[in-house]
């Protein structure tokens, strides 16, 4: 699994977009932009997907579907919100059926702005997602090696993080005291 970042599977789901961003995501896969040269490939199956691209704000009916797709994806996974609708709700933010951006339903890692998001920026988002995916899969390997479940591993990481923050704070306090003294 050393170089898994070279070929993640991409899954695209349309939250409630106006089509603009969907079509641009598809256009990324066609000859002129050709994101497939980066090793990513589109799939229709959430069970084998690594990167989830969400377009459009999330509406009431799409919410359970998006959650379900997210849960079906195996760990590690990365979520990319494509287009301003998926980032914040965009022009439809005030509409009665829109909950807001994709991050109201699932945790989003990378935000791609634009209305419609340009293929160039979508590809940029995919590249960043690939890097993050590589990082996460290394962590995942470490977790499997240590024989921990995801929950245990997360707890451990959180504790480590909390310790780091506490240490940094103590360091700061000490410095301040020195300065004052």
């Amino acid at each position, binding site marked *: 699994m050393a170089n898994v970042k070279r070929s993640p599977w991409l899954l695209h789901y349309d939250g409630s977009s*106006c089509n603009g961003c969907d079509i641009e995501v598809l256009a990324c896969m*066609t*000859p002129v932009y050709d994101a497939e040269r980066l090793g990513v490939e589109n799939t229709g199956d959430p069970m084998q997907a690594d990167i989830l691209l969400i377009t459009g704000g999330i509406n009431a009916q799409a919410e359970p579907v998006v959650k379900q797709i997210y849960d079906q994806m195996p760990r590690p996974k990365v979520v990319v919100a494509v287009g301003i609708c998926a980032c914040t709700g965009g022009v439809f933010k005030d509409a009665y059926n829109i909950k807001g951006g994709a991050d109201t339903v699932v945790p989003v890692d990378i935000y791609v702005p634009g209305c419609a998001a340009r293929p160039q920026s979508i590809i940029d988002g995919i590249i960043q997602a690939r890097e993050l995916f590589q990082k996460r899969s290394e962590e995942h390997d470490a977790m499997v090696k240590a024989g921990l479940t995801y929950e245990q591993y997360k707890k451990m990481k959180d504790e480590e993080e909390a310790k780091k923050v506490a240490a940094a704070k103590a360091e700061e306090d000490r410095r301040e005291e020195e300065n004052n003294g």
Partner: protein
Amino acid sequence: MAKKRSVVPFGPQHPVLPEPIHLDLVLEDEKVVEAVPNIGFIHRGLEGLTEKKDFRQMTYVIERTCGICSFGHGLGYVETIENIMNVEVPERAKYLRTIWSELARMHSHLLWLGLISDAFGFESLFYQSWRIRERVLDCLELTTGGRLIFSVLEPGGVLRDINKDQEKEILKQIGLVEEELKEVEKAFLLDYSVQTRLKGVGIITKERAHEIGCCGPVARASGLSYDMRKLGYEAYGNLDFEPIISNDCDSYARCEVRIKEIHQSIDLIRQAFAKMPEGDLSVPVKGFPKGECFTRIEQPRGEAIYYVKANGTKMLDRFRLRTPTFANLEGLCEMLKNCEYADVGILCVTIDPCISCTER
């Protein structure tokens, strides 16, 4: 032995569908006896936004009804407002609007050619169609700044001009599109395996198409000469064209009609550039609209109807949109009856469904 009936759900997330739509297919062995569509996955409540945005801001919201027919929706809306307020748009703006709508039609039809070839498994044909489509998108980007959503319309005219250099570039690009399309269309119209998937499949007879109110290329492929551009809105009244019809009534006919319409659009753009006069881009529009109006526009997918009710303040009372896909969904259910299960994917694509318009 009585045949067993089973219900198979199709969608909302399905590889042939770029957008979520759900169909419940009632099967008898491999035959579909009934199809019940279930829509609502992309409903955003766009019409309800009239309460929160004023009528000028609504132009930009309505353009975002759909990323493919975006220009047409904006056009239908501003025309309705102009009709209510009795605004006469300058001639040059009318021609510019016509040119942009035809470019949008070309990109929509090329996109559809790609989707249908993906549905019957011709991946490279899909790539070719989308490669040609990029030329059209380049033209649109050159003149409006956006690839899919242009925001160049305002009540009273247009916001951008097309200068001589850009005109030359567009004419050059559409010339190339014409040449390349001639190569690619051979595969669609003459290839044996494509014909086996399209010919004689998904028939809607002329009478039936009229009864259930199909529109756009679906109606024209069933022999109904029905094209809203013939109403002569914008500059269409000054251009010379005939609706393209076919009497075969099947999927092949729908494909043929769309390919010929791309050629027709190229021709219309050339005519429009030849006749376009110099002049202003827009007239100032003062005050707020009061009254109500219906407008009909020929979108790439068929006839769209726009209704606005205004009360003399800056907020509108009501905006309503009847989309072509809504009319054609009935046609889809008609086609799906008694078809083979394996054809469902292709048939769904042949009406060129645009779900995000339909559900808004």
